């Protein structure tokens, strides 16, 4: 069977999602998107003019090839995030939203209380909500209960390129999740992305590490390979990460 990422019933063959911030030009971004193999591309609503047909970022994303995932970057509370999401839908975007509620402009760490609140509101309004969160396993379950389509725990603060510093908590989130787990933020190298997939994450989202590389296109291709390697290793039954991993043939089958 084909190994697909399924979010809210929609099937994606790539497990790499990419962000559109921080690129030196729309052309550089387009080439990186192409090389990444990504099918989901997130765009900060604060950066775009939804009513402007010549908006440089919106025009650079070919909607027939990519799912344009609007994000609420800049929102400091649930109200602001909800307003942004509604604006995007009213302007014709699909009802998908990457929910970011980050009251602190320095490290852009997500506010768990406001994120849960916004998720509850948006889910009721029919949005497919992908919330960005701290690697907090209980919060992940609460969001899942509220109807979130994925959870997106951070590996390290946004833009820090520090890798998966929240590894143990992410492992617990993965263990308990019934929705896809997308590791978002802080991944600085293809090996970090590979590790996330090896741990059993369903996907990763990368922006800074690609956008500020000397050669974003080549780096995007490298992340694509990293994600594929990590996923293959996970499917191949990597030893050592999870003690409850299924054995290839039953160990106690003889008892029946």
């Amino acid at each position, binding site marked *: 069977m084909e190994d697909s990422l399924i979010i809210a019933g929609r099937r994606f063959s790539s497990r790499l999602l990419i962000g559109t*911030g*921080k*690129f*030196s*030009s*729309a052309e550089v971004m387009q080439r990186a998107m192409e090389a990444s193999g990504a099918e989901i591309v997130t765009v900060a*609503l*604060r*950066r*775009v*003019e939804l009513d402007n047909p010549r908006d440089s970022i919106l025009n650079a994303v070919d909607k027939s090839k990519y799912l344009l995932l609007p994000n609420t970057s*800049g*929102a*400091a509370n649930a109200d*602001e995030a909800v*307003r*942004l999401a509604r*604006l995007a839908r009213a302007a014709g975007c699909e009802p998908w939203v990457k929910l970011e509620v980050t*009251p*602190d*402009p*320095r*490290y852009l760490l997500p506010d768990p209380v406001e994120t849960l609140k916004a998720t509850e509101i948006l889910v009721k309004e029919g949005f497919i909500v992908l919330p960005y969160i701290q690697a907090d396993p209980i919060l992940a379950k609460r969001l899942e209960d509220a109807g979130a389509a994925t959870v997106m725990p951070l590996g390290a603060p946004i*833009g*820090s*390129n*520090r890798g998966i510093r929240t590894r143990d908590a992410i492992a617990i989130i993965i263990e308990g999740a019934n929705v896809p787990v997308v590791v978002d933020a802080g991944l600085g190298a293809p090996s970090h992305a590979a590790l996330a997939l090896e741990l059993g994450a369903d996907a990763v989202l990368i922006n*800074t590490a690609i*956008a*500020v590389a000397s050669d974003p296109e080549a780096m995007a291709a490298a992340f694509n390979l990293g994600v594929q390697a990590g996923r293959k290793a996970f499917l191949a039954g990597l030893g050592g990460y999870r003690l409850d991993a299924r054995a290839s043939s039953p160990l106690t089958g003889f008892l029946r």
Partner: protein
Amino acid sequence: MSFYDEIKSTGWAEVQKDIESRSDADVDSALGTFRSGGVDLGHFMSLLSPAAGNHLERAAGLAHNITRQRFGNTIGLFAPLYLSNFCNNSCAYCGFNCKNPIRRLILTPEQAKAEGLFIRNMGFRSLLLVAGEAPQVASLDYFVETAQTLRPLFPSLGLEIYPMSVEEYRPLIDCGVDGLTVFQETYNETAYELFHLGGKKKDYKWRLETPERGGEAGFRRLGLGALLGLDNWRVEAFLMGLHAKYLMRKYWRAQISISFPRLRPAAGAFEIPQEVSDKDFAQLLIALRLFLPDAGFTLSTREPPQLRDNLLALGITSMSAGSKTDPGGYTHPQAQDAEAQFEISDDRDPGTVAEVIRQKGYEPVWKDWDEALS
């Protein structure tokens, strides 16, 4: 404890002496231990020292990389809109000094809207409203009405007007103003008195505590700045760095940014007490960037084109372009010169500046805020 109380016991001369005593080895240690969270206070002093002037290339590399990592390959663009040049203050260095016999003008909200439309048509979506201190003509009500008029044109509105109280700031925030900038001019209280000869601006403490009142009121962006050239730039930068850190701790929801207005030699004008060379200016930018990796750094059109273009890579995150510093100057350009607050050195149009930014490997960003956010 306010920032005023926090630095009250800091002796200007002692700080200067400490900074100037730093050695090459101190600078080397500061650069060698740099991490993405920024250097500590002692290392910051070393980076501001004369010794660090010999290590600029290495320091510049770190400043360049950390800025790209935090802010990406982008430069924000904004334009100032001068609403009024009426001013009750007498500041020795300023073109709006109440003693200067210039033609005084205040735009009506309708005239401001015409200027706003002109600026919007140039591409800008971020606007800075500027006015002199004359509440008898430019009152709180006036600013509220003007902001309401301009709000539909600009997702982001900032203020650079006279200091107000927390209660006065609130209605401005309510009508969508998200940023507040106030320049301390000099952090040296003794020197401050020499340059601010009349008007309410004489009150150093009231001015210094303005960003705190802005943070209390709930502005999303707070901007600081010292007028470089009034006093020793190394100490100004040190205290400005402390000020930014203080505000980041106390008003953690606000984005802190720093502007770098610099006095430049001009015929017949104010004599610059302690001129800041281009090299000094670059060192100041770099040291502050390594101390404050996530503060916004803003550069105005006071600086000449070639220097602006080269400073871009050292940590600048936003710039003004195509600026007019006289009220009505965008729509009635013939009225220029006499009423301008300071001389524009970079008079290139915004499209040209955006093209240069692109050539330097950055994306010019016109919109980076949304009206849904406030």
